[in-house]
């Protein structure tokens, strides 16, 4: 089953739909929310006239003007630091960090302030902001353009962390993130920004944060993943179906708060789990998932939980990136090992 078919069932048959890429869905979500709420503003590098290096803010400056689609100086810490000041005083900034590999200068502002202000002031000052960050590899870019740093933020309480894998979720989750009262890190899978189009509702809609989906049902083994790797998992499931292996794919969609019950229900049913992510294996979120499965579903397991992840190395340059990223074959091998255990 393709992603388009899966999401077609969630679409209101009476409503208008259009075929959009993830990048277009992201733009539409921002456009809809800016129409709905005057306090929503976009700020980042090249988000204005250029429409963003991935065109995710394409045309927004024409509709909303330079006061709401703000090209900032080239300063990641300022983008986030200013957003904290704005969010605490009545605005809803949607900040863009052009590539997640460039988030380091802003980490102090994110961890020391954005994630903590509500708690520090016992709810008096809050930070309703979204930080959009294209993440992940597979686009043959220069250095520092391919990283997946979710673990850095999952061990830093106070954020929500959201990773869509398709246009429908991208539009609905981003709308929900912008309306959320807390800081949301929104990781966009740049590798599949324009890889495919899905038919999704033209009208604004939200997809709730903290709810996983099951885009492919199966009985033998559960693949747990998020973002761009969900596509690779679905391809693997299609391939293994020809070998009569029935794979269930769980798309977490939100890593914090985590929808533990959907994930555990699937693993309880299949008795086998393989976690797939692009970030390095050691200290990756797969380790947390494996620990949760061990804590809550150990007696249902037929085999140890396996992880297919990036290696514990610096993200390679373009010619080597295929050697780093989890592939259909690596995932299939892990599934077979799990089944043969």
């Amino acid at each position, binding site marked *: 089953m393709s992603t388009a078919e899966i999401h077609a069932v969630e679409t209101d048959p009476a409503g208008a739909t259009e075929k959009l890429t993830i990048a277009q869905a992201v733009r539409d979500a921002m456009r809809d929310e800016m129409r709905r709420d005057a306090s929503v*503003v976009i700020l980042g590098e090249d988000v204005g006239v250029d429409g963003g290096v991935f065109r995710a803010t394409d045309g927004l400056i024409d509709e909303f003007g330079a*006061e*709401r689609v*703000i090209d*900032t*100086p080239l*300063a990641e*810490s*300022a983008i*986030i*630091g*200013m*957003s*904290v*000041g*704005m*969010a*605490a*005083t*009545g*605005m809803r900034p949607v900040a863009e960090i052009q590539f997640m590999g460039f988030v380091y*200068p802003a980490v*102090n*502002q994110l961890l*020391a*302030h954005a994630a903590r*202000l*509500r*708690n*520090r*002031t*016992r*709810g*008096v*000052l*809050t930070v309703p902001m979204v930080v959009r960050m294209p993440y992940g590899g597979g686009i043959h870019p220069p250095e520092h353009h391919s990283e997946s740093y979710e673990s850095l933020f999952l061990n830093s*309480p*106070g954020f*929500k962390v959201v990773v869509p894998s398709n246009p429908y979720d991208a539009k609905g989750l981003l709308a929900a993130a912008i309306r*959320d*009262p*807390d800081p949301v890190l929104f990781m966009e899978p740049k590798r599949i920004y324009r890889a495919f189009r899905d038919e999704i509702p033209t009208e604004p809609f939200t997809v709730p944060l*903290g709810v996983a989906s099951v885009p492919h049902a199966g009985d033998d083994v559960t693949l747990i993943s998020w973002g761009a790797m969900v596509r690779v998992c679905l391809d693997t499931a299609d391939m293994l179906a020809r070998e009569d292996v029935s794979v269930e794919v769980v798309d977490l969609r939100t890593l*914090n*708060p*985590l929808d*533990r019950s959907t994930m555990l229900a699937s693993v309880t049913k299949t008795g086998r789990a393989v976690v797939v992510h692009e970030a390095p294996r050691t200290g990756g979120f797969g380790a947390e998932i494996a620990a949760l499965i061990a804590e809550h579903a150990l007696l249902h397991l037929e085999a140890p939980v396996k992880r297919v992840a990036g290696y514990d190395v610096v993200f390679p340059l373009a010619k080597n990136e295929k050697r780093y990223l989890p592939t259909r074959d690596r995932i299939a091998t892990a599934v077979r090992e799990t089944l043969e255990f």
Partner: protein
Amino acid sequence: MPKTQVYHAVTERLEILGPDGTVDKDLLPELGEERVRSMYLDMIRMRAMDDKALKLQRQGRMGTWPPIKGQEAIQAGVAQAMADDDWLIPAFREHGIMWLRGVPAHLIYAYWAGDERGSAFPEGVRVFPVAVPVGSQWQHGTGVGLSLKLRGEDAVAVTFGGDGSTSEGDFHEAMNCAGVFRTPCVFVIQNNQWAISVPLHQQTASETLAQKAHAYGIPGVQVDGNDVFAVYSAAAEAIDNARRGGGPTLIEAVTYRLGDHTTADDASRYREDEEVEAWAERDPIVRLRSFLEQRGWWDADREQAAQSEAQTWVDRMVAEAEAMPPQDAGDIFTHMYAELPPNLAEQMAEATGGESS
């Protein structure tokens, strides 16, 4: 082709009230007897608050406290220049102005004694909580200014920081962005000469900190930070300019940290007593009292009454802070998010044995 001059700048210093209490009459702001006296009373209370905190710390009733002794004129002068709706974004040596901007003093004690509720300011108090990561708050100030500008609010964001924080990248980014966006911001550097043990000349090769403003295309001015009139005048002009859409200003207020960096520091390890004594003679409170006495606006009886009143006030604040009931066992969990997520609900139950929900 000969080289031509493409930019030239001059940085000015403002002084009005001399160490002996005499003033430059042409520059003296028209504040009137009552307001000047009230600034003096503000400064006396700040000193009393500070002295008391140090005593409490030695008795084990206060956590690590960063003293403000010697820096009272900056905080009283800037506060006097601010309007009701203006925002204050402090660093961590601004207890005086935080109180003057509406933060109840007992909350300041509570915060430094280790209670998060000390940063839960009453509704309508436009003050950010203390910012410990050095220099990070400059960025928030620019963001608050941008927010005020976009929403068309007739208010100004006043951000404080120390001399050491001007070495942080965030200082540069915040000034740069404020200049680009012409935000209604006033940035006040409390240049107290020392960032823990590192003196100013090891922070920067600049002659002044005020001159850094030139690089961001915004006005910068240096004032004698122990001269409450100079501080007030510079702040009033900058705030007025920002409110009228004229953009940001950087004010360097030159002062001296008469105390240790915090109660966990021993400044005698890195600076000479003679230096401290020389600055103690320029005490901003003594200086303003000399002025008041020369005008006939103050005398020994008033002084005694004021000191006694400040002590009573401080004692009341300590009593209020110490009378706060303990936080609930679950309070460390309940303010992380607007809604308690399932994993935190589980951890809270584990931590509290189900007492708190």
